[in-house]
């Protein structure tokens, strides 16, 4: 029924199989939409956040999504600016994943603020001293860049490409993509950094506070580095999952290797700097605030969290991903990438939740928090939205340029480049 929309040279499952898959994730999105409606209608009392937990699951998810979405700008930077031609095989997927992560993060932020209708005040009454202002400006602008990067891909859909205007517009955009890749890189460096700065500037929260360089706390630079370490791993993982779900080779194995290698070396650099940062924090900020290192690791958020973040989900994946012998084994490659993104998500969790959970006043109480079904609904709804959009993009857009070559369509046992099942015009 939708054969006319499917890219040339590739095969897709039947609508009968595709629709139940879409329905499943649509239900998850519906859960998110119901939750969002309740939050808009009844207010943020629908969550388990409180005066102690001003930020909760959504901010943790937002920070993680934005870090993982960094694969888009960084792959764009490597492809268009540095000239890593091999990554052209994955750049389209990276752009779609980036678009999903950023649009989902912005949508979640829209629910998370108490007065969503005043969201535009950030641009109108902007406080230039606030890291959150910089984050808001840059992620909004970058979502625009991602949309521009996504458009040529949408216009390359077979039916849309038949419309001359779309075709010309898409081609022209495609030719200027290096400019947008550069703009995206610039914007991303700043908002990834500002997300780290968001916590690093909290001088009255010793867990989060960091010294730094000029106006930028060290977390500014660590967040940039960790996002470009996690981004390629997340892109790799998404493509791997797509490969498993579709049962097709989507990119050559060498592309995975390259992503893993880049991710691994960046993660190694990040982990070294993170360890140095933790040591300097433990011997600088912490005693100056009259606290000892272990004061920050109480209750459910014990020292295991730091061991997990830096040791298990930091050092181990770094070793796996930088060692050619290890990353060439499929199982270890995926475990390495998964552990890498888990470690970065744990880092975002610690900065969001642990910062708030540790009482600063000595007589204040230690709090813990668990999200409500509405909070889970919105967070998982964002995941569902991502899977829906990625599935649609995969089905109807030429997402993987190497797919046709890697999966020749066979008609009566003979490989053909065009499926032959679909007449082009």
């Amino acid at each position, binding site marked *: 029924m939708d054969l006319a929309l499917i890219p040339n040279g590739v095969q897709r499952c039947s609508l009968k199989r595709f629709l139940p898959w879409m329905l499943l994730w649509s239900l998850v999105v519906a859960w998110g939409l119901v939750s969002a409606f309740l939050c808009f209608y009844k*207010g*943020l*009392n629908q969550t388990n*956040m*409180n*005066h*102690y937990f*001003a*930020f909760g699951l959504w901010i943790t998810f937002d920070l993680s999504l934005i870090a993982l979405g960094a694969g888009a700008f960084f792959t764009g930077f490597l492809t268009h600016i540095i000239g890593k031609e091999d990554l052209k095989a994955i750049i389209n997927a990276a752009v779609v994943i980036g678009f999903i992560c950023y649009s989902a993060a912005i949508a979640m932020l829209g629910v*998370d*603020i*108490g*007065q969503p209708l*005043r*969201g535009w*005040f*950030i641009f*109108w*009454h*902007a*406080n230039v*001293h*606030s*890291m*959150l*202002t910089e984050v*808001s400006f840059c992620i909004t602008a970058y979502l625009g860049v991602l949309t521009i990067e996504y458009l040529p891909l949408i216009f390359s859909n077979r039916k849309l490409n038949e419309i001359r205007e779309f075709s010309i517009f898409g081609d022209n955009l495609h030719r200027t993509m290096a400019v947008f890749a550069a703009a995206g890189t610039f914007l991303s460096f700043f908002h990834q950094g500002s997300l780290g700065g*968001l916590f690093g*500037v*909290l*001088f*009255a*929260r*010793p867990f989060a506070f960091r010294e730094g360089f000029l106006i930028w706390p060290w977390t500014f630079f660590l967040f940039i580095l960790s996002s470009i370490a996690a981004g390629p791993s997340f892109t790799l993982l998404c493509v791997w999952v797509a490969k498993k779900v579709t049962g097709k080779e989507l990119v050559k194995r060498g592309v995975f290797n390259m992503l893993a290698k880049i991710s691994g070396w960046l993660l190694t650099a990040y982990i070294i700097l993170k360890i140095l940062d933790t040591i300097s924090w433990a011997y600088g900020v912490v*005693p*100056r*605030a*009259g*606290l*000892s290192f272990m*004061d920050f690791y109480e209750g459910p958020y014990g020292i295991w969290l730091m061991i997990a973040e830096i040791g298990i989900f930091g050092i181990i994946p770094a070793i796996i991903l930088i060692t050619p012998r290890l990353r060439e084994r499929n199982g270890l490659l995926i475990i390495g990438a998964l552990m890498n993104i888990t470690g970065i998500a744990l880092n975002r969790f610690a900065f969001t939740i642990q*910062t*708030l959970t540790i009482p*600063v*006043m*000595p*007589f*204040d109480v230690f*709090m813990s928090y668990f999200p409500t079904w509405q909070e889970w609904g919105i967070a998982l709804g964002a995941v569902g939205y991502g899977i829906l959009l990625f599935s649609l993009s995969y089905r109807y857009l030429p997402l993987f340029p190497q797919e046709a070559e890697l999966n020749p369509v066979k008609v009566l046992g003979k490989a053909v480049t065009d499926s032959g099942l679909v007449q082009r015009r």
Partner: protein
Amino acid sequence: MKKEEKASGTRYAMVIDLDACTGCGVCVVACASENNIPVMFDESDKTRNITWIQIYILANGKGFPETQLIYIPRPCMQCGNPPCVPVCPVTATRKDPNTGIVSQIYTRCIGCRYCMAACPYQARDFNWFDPSFPEGMDRYLSPEVSPRMRGVVEKCTFCHHRLMRAKAKAYTEGRRYLKEDEYIPACAQACPAKAITFGDPNNPAHMVSELIKGPYVFRLLERLGTEPKVYYISTKHWVRRMADNYLSGEFSTLRSQLE
């Protein structure tokens, strides 16, 4: 900001004598009544109710007969270096350079709660619910203070509207200065134990300027650099010890210096 403050001279501060405080809670009631603080359907939920001045109960941890309890009323510290002000993305909170009072613009606040994350004193409250007042209570709302809508952050303002009122009165009388007792927040006025003293420490005529020089004066979390303008007095060293975080041995050094 500091230059401006120096130029204007005035910086309002509060001194709370913890040895005098009985923990009766009248300051909390007076504050709620003065500032149109809504009544939640479950006021026992202290993590979500609105209290501009909250009373913490501290114990020395010793058994009978050496048990000691003390109450610490905690309004907004009106910090000289407020951690909440620079982080607000929409400039909805600012420190008045002429008075040092940190205010909140409710109609501009977008409810991102970043200021709450920045404040170590838990002095900022978010309106998780629509404001509600029991039947008849709405007739007692103060016309000088705007009630806050759901989804915004609010905090103690040192009853800033009283300052406005006092200034207007002084203006009509042709004065450019305020007398010490002309501007006092509701909590200080209502305290039956006279534990709360309010005024301008930079003005030698004001009692607070003397009180803050006392040997038993301390502020909460002073070493974080927030420069709070709420001072406490307690002769009990265990209370002063609990006002801030100290590494082992640090506080006893301070104590020996004091004694």
